[in-house]
């Protein structure tokens, strides 16, 4: 009743081609953005802003990056954390070595650096597919971390290999409060997410999906495989690179190459799988699931322990959290193999018929 597009007529091509074709969707997205930009910074405390929402947005951006590559172009990658590391270290070095460079320019350049590395490690995708490609991208994961550790230049010869991100300054204004960093991250993520949403509907995105579904058929209808696959690698890596730069500058403040290890690549891959392969919304849902659930379990554990009046052996709750986390992943994948985004879609379809399903 509420969610129905009956009566919404499209009179022009522009209207027909909008990102969100249904008015209710546009209102909902607009309201969400207003909420995220205005209400959240006013209401949320420092803990929520800096320890939960900022990393959530950053990981969502990385998941979008991987989703472009894996979900839309069908190229399995295990190098996400490596591309994030490239972004983080590139942004650090641009700010360090180019005096007076605006931070956003440094971020864009960091994205471009990550894209170049992505193209380099995407080259094997022209000949190999699936699991074999995953192994090739695994090489990126190990090589990048090794190179950043091995060559002191990348970390400005810091003895421990740790870089300490510079202050974020935009037009003379220093972003150093949790709310400021949150808004900075949110702006970048919102712009890039909308760009991604639009990109996957464009001819580029359609070419990616054609390659994903059947590359032989795609090349028969005139899609150039090399260009398509490498563009997916480039754009995906650029997204991951910007996410990595944000991870260093807006979230942790200091990062070491070892922080961008294979675990992190897997985490982002899990976000994509749980959120929904080939869905921008799914990237956000998956990131929320993987980032928030362990924190929620960790917060809930002592309450449950005391509430039930049990004296648990120390360490037991920590182990239990991991077990519950794993079980929930299995549960959600068993209930809906296509991820949380698919659940959302089903919900929307039900809502369209509500309250008269027949």
């Amino acid at each position, binding site marked *: 009743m509420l969610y129905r597009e009956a009566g919404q007529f499209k009179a022009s091509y522009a209207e027909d081609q909008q990102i969100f074709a249904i008015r209710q969707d546009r209102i909902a997205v607009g309201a969400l953005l207003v909420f995220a930009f205005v209400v959240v910074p006013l209401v949320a405390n*420092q*803990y929520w802003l800096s320890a939960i929402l900022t990393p959530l947005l950053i990981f969502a951006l990385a998941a979008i990056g991987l989703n472009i590559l894996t979900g839309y172009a069908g190229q399995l990658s295990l190098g996400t954390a490596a591309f994030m590391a490239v972004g983080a270290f590139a942004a650090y070095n641009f700010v360090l070595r180019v005096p007076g460079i605006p931070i956003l320019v440094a971020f864009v350049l960091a994205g471009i650096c990550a894209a170049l590395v992505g193209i380099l490690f995407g080259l094997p995708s022209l000949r190999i597919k699936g699991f074999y490609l995953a192994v090739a991208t695994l090489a990126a994961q190990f090589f990048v971390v090794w190179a950043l550790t091995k060559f002191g230049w990348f970390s400005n010869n810091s*003895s*421990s*290999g740790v870089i300490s991100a510079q202050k974020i300054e935009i037009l003379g204004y220093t972003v150093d409060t949790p709310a400021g960093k949150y808004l900075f991250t949110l702006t970048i993520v919102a712009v890039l997410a909308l760009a991604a949403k639009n990109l996957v509907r464009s001819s580029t995105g359609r070419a990616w999906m054609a390659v994903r579904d059947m590359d032989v058929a795609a090349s028969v209808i005139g899609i150039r495989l090399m260009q398509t696959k490498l563009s997916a690698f480039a754009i995906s890596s650029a997204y991951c690179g910007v996410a990595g730069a944000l991870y260093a500058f807006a979230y*942790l403040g200091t990062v070491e190459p*070892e922080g961008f290890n294979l675990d992190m690549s897997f985490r982002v891959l899990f976000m994509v799988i749980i959120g929904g392969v080939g869905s921008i919304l799914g990237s956000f849902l998956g990131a929320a699931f993987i980032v928030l659930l362990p*924190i929620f379990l960790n917060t809930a554990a002592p309450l449950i322990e005391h509430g039930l009046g049990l004296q648990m052996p120390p*360490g037991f709750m920590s*182990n239990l959290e991991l077990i519950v986390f794993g079980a929930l992943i299995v549960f959600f994948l068993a209930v809906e193999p296509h991820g949380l985004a698919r659940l959302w879609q089903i919900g929307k379809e039900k809502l369209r018929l509500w309250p008269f399903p027949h």
Partner: protein
Amino acid sequence: MKSFTKALLGLAMLGAAATTHAQNEQFVPMVGYWVGPYAAGGSGIFGGMIDYINMVNARDGGVGGVKLTYEKCETEYNNARGVECYERLKKKGPTGATLVHPLSTGITYSLIEKGTQDKVPIVSIGYGRTDASDGRVFPWVFPLLTNYWSQNTAKIKFIGSKEGGMDKLKGKKIVNIYHDSAYGKETIPVLDAQAKKYGFTVTHIPVPHPGNEQGAQWLQVRQIKPDWVILRGWGVMNPVALKGAAKVGFPRDRIIGVWWSGAEEDTIPAGDAAKGYIAAGFNVAGSNFPVIQDIKKYVYAKGKGEMEDPTRIGSIYYNRGVVHGIVTVEAIRKAQEKYGKKPLTGEQIRWGLENLTISEARLKELGAAGFMQPLKVSCLDHEGGGAVKFQQWDGKEWKVITDWITPDRDLVRPMIEQSAAGYAKEKNITPRDCSKES
């Protein structure tokens, strides 16, 4: 269903009860880890620290009548989780977090700026950022007792004494096997500086995290045929290294471990391969100290206590946790001398840490004589000690084989000051003038 509603109600009430803090409490966050490859260290150290705090609460009714409270948060030794835990706990309690022990060099690095901004002291006992020992640049960071560089010079001193004098080090070959992380790499510059000074050669061999595969590294050791190996491992990397050494036939009594490589959890899994292995330590093992006996009496005898396996009480990691507890409690006590016996803020505790002195006599009062070294912190020197003891694994337990060996301060201090000055310049920090601190 009814019982479920009841349970839910109980939970809600409990939540409400937990938020209404009694006002006379000092809150200590426990940002630690009880799972993962480093759980042996995390559970032992946090177990010791929590037990000590509970013992102080039970025996003395807290510090100056102020009860100590704590809350655990699992970081899994992961920087991002560590930052989340810190943010979650920093405002808890009537006055916020007293201080934070991140128990991870990576998390310490991530918290340096946050702690400075939030006015929460970051205490890293025996790990963390070495140049933070310069308190003028790092007012909020306390790498207490001993830092990696000090410890490393003590190791070379020890090797020198074994070789029959520092001049005998010339031409010797030393291999530094390190955990490839911020922690592992921290000693490379000081080792290089010492190699230059004493004329030995040093080869750095990294072991990737978590370190359960070291075949290639030990083959390389066999090729180099070093006189000594310095093991800078952590967690599962250590027993694997000892087994690797046994496999290539490298004598174990020529391997010197850092204190994060010298606990029962590191040697027992290696079995016979660990026999003869030497490690540094800033605390000793054993449960005969009065402080440990008090913990048994006031905590474990009442059926409480953090350790699932009571045989771990008195182990290296557990006792190190007790050292963490002693330093925390003494810092609070010192701060109470100036600011009164009430819950104190992080800023007031920072003063307590900076003016903390734990003398030999005080250690005796605490029942910890010989358990740890005396400590004297100042605005200039946030390390406050620097000495280590060396101990050898005899197949059953750690035997102390030296007295406290002091570091080569003449070498380390200028390096610390230079490195700290570099940080100050990068971050636009004006170092404090210590003569003006009260």
